[in-house]
């Protein structure tokens, strides 16, 4: 439906977007995720037509739209600050796109009302934009963008100006609405939790480059590189060497002589003897107090608790081991700060092995 082919954008010497290739299927909800300055907003603005790519193409429904100005693309956009027209009332805002499209005059009021009803703002047409709350404004912006029935809807951090509770509610309503109408959407955010909650697939960007595309579950469980691992959820890294390699798994040896079996990151070489960074999620590690007796097992690393943080459903421990620090979720008995502990992966969990030089 939407295809980005080797899309690039530079501003002078700065490469904002560097050869991004990506496909979005009809009806899919794709999120561009990354830290600020990663190029996600620039990518979105190129799809909308506000920025001109310095290389590559944008193909929409099989048609190359790269040279076409925004008003000719049939792509709707919801802006971070909503960009509502303050000199018009709610209905006029929503009608704007229909009028620009040349919709029959008689049809417009009904279509506007329907668009407003969809976002639960039926009857709000005569209100002034300034009278509405932030959440209502956000919904007007959504109704306005969807009213002309765009082929593709772009959303630029549309939830970032809402408070936490409202954001969570709006999030699920937004997903339900888009899925119900079967709208193809590209969404930009820096919030991984939001990306997980909304997306069919997530494209992770860093420093202008596409790092990985996949379902939230795939990205979390099998990140392609340490950046994706660290950006999506909490990740701890330990340095070691590959002792032996067997297809998709490798046995990694740590300086203290401990051995972990780990899944080799997709596409990584990692022959025996190679330096490796082993990544583990907090919930995939288990920990016990060294004082609980029964000497250290072959897979267990030794460490000292430096911080203990209670987070309601679970408790997180920061454990210093050698030069690294790892985060372990729960299971520490009541290990206190400064106490020596042993930790290792759960029996059914495989940490991930990345080549050490890869960043």
């Amino acid at each position: 439906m939407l295809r980005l082919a080797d899309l690039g954008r530079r501003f002078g010497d700065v490469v904002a977007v560097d050869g991004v290739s990506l496909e979005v299927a009809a009806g899919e909800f794709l999120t561009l995720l990354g830290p600020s300055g990663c190029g996600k907003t620039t990518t979105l603005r190129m799809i909308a037509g506000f920025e001109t790519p310095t290389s590559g193409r944008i193909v929409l429904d099989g048609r190359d739209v790269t040279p076409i100005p925004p008003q000719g693309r049939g792509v709707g956009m919801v802006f971070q600050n909503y960009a509502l027209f303050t000199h018009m009332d709610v209905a006029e805002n929503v009608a704007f796109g229909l009028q620009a499209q040349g919709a029959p005059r008689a049809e417009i009021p009904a279509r506007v009302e329907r668009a407003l009803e969809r976002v639960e703002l039926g009857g709000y047409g005569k209100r002034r934009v300034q009278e509405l709350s932030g959440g209502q404004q956000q919904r007007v912006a959504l109704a306005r963008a969807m009213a002309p029935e765009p082929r593709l809807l772009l959303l630029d951090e549309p939830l970032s100006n809402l408070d936490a509770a409202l954001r969570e509610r709006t999030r699920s309503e937004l997903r339900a609405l888009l899925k119900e109408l079967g709208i193809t959407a590209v969404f930009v955010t820096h919030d991984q939790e939001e990306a997980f909650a909304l997306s069919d697939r997530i494209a992770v960007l860093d420093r202008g480059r596409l790092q990985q595309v996949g379902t939230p579950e795939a990205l979390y469980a099998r990140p392609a590189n340490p950046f994706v691992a660290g950006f999506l959820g909490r990740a701890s890294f330990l340095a070691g060497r590959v002792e032996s390699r067997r297809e998709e798994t490798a046995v990694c040896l740590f300086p203290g002589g401990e051995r972990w079996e780990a899944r080799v990151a997709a596409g990584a070489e990692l022959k025996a003897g190679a330096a490796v960074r082993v990544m583990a999620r907090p919930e995939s590690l288990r920990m016990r107090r060294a004082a609980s007796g029964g000497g250290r097992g072959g897979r267990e690393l030794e460490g000292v608790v430096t911080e203990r943080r209670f987070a309601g459903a679970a408790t997180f421990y920061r454990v210093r081991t050698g030069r690294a620090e790892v985060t372990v979720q729960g299971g520490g008995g009541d290990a206190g700060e400064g106490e020596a502990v042993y930790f290792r992966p759960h029996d059914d969990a495989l940490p991930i092995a990345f080549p050490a030089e890869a960043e």
Partner: protein
Amino acid sequence: MSDSRSSGRGTLLLALPVALLLLWLVLYPNLFVLRDSFVEGGRLTLDHWRRFWASGTEVGALWASVWISVLSVVLSAAVGVPLAFLFSRYDFPGRRILGGLAAMPVLLPPLVGTISFLFLYGESGFLTRGVQVALGLAEPPWRLTGPWAILLVHAYTMYVYFYLFTAAGLSRLDASYAEASAALGAGRWTTLRRVTLPLLAPALGGAGLLVFMTSMASFSAPYVFGGGFRVLTTQLYASKLNGEEGLVAVEATVLALASLLFLVLLQRYEGGRQYTGASKGSGAGSRKRGGRGALLLSLLAFLGVGFLLLPHATVLLVSFVPEGTWTTEILPPVYSVEGYRALFTEPERLVPVLNSLRMATLATVANVAFAFAAGYLLARRRFPGRRMVDALVVLPWALPGTVLAIALASTFSVNEPLAGRFVLVGTFAILPLAYFVRNVPLVTRAALTSFRQLDPSLEEAAASLGAGRATALRRVVLPLVLPGLAAGALLAWVTALGEFVSSILLYTHRTRPISVEMLAQLRAFDFGGAAAYGVLLIALVALAFVFGWRRVNEEPPGG
């Protein structure tokens, strides 16, 4: 997120006429003046410059301009700064209203202010005669003429810069600075000297430069009160009347260079103006409430402001005096609305009003169209020559009206269409043209401010909803920019209505504007008639002020 609004074809299509118009009407005429100062009878010469520097009168006029300006700064500061402290640091009954009224001299068109001083302190003015009668003197106690008269008018009209800048500076000054200083054991004077004034320095410096520039360019007061005492602007006018074209060009060049120097200084100063407090503490918190002192302060402020409003009251009073009825009395003995009736019924009196209305309206319409294009380009687009447009748009603000008039006069007195020169001098077109050029900075600034406040994503939203450039402009940009632009246009319109400095150099009898006619009636001792014009102008300016000033003044001049 950087912008990609690079120079597309449409941008260039808009930028080209804007840049050409500025080059043609702002830069080009001034280059002619520069050229004329080096040319005599078709060949290059330094004669004019030699004559300028060799003549005691010429150099004397230059120095007079400089020292009058220096003293104007000192006197304006002496009036404006204490007033600002009084109104922002103390609380007393009537503070708000009086504080607002203290900015009233802004409402006096330059010539009207000067004339009101004549009615008040002139040889036959109210105050002069009052003192004369009270003391039983045979002669008036003073003559309002020469440098001291000019300084009096300057101090009165220009203290407003110091007043407004200081008040703005004080309101932004964090009260916690003064509190910290007091907590460290500093006395009131030490705090003022070591903390408050240094923090105000940028505001004071900015005001000082502005007053200096305004005073260098001042024409009305030296013209009416100078007598034999000449400053550069009046000397230039005299040379022009004498037909000394070469000397006029030298004088205009010297004036222009002095003004440009101060424009550069001012922009430097404003670039370094970072004196807001680090926290959000309020400056108003430090306002002292005097107990019994409050009444005294109130009285003091009331008297001070009353004094500042005297000129307005005077013009209003004199406007009701029929021609030839006021001779030796302290106050005019007869009052009537004859002056106003004549204004609207006698064709000879109405002509200047109609002239000014037509010429100001024409100029303002052009100003609005130009400012919309230039403001849009400067705020939204990148194009080659952007810096030049940015600079040329400010230039007429810095150049004295006298210089602009001379520049236009020398450029548009010859018919050379290929060189972009036409005979406009002596026609109806030259005054609207001068008004247009003089108001380019004001209206463009208003438009630019509006465009800058307009969120660029609004235009993007319109585009993503399928609206083309034209639709987006008409339905989104224009409605949102219009209020600011209209405010700027209103101010430009009243400025043009009362314009005097350029008009006096360019008018013909047929195209004479209100200000020139006002002066003519003054010369003919029809004070009532002159004052009636004055009241009309004050009323129009006041109206525009109420509607427009706040919007336009959100950005400092030259920005």
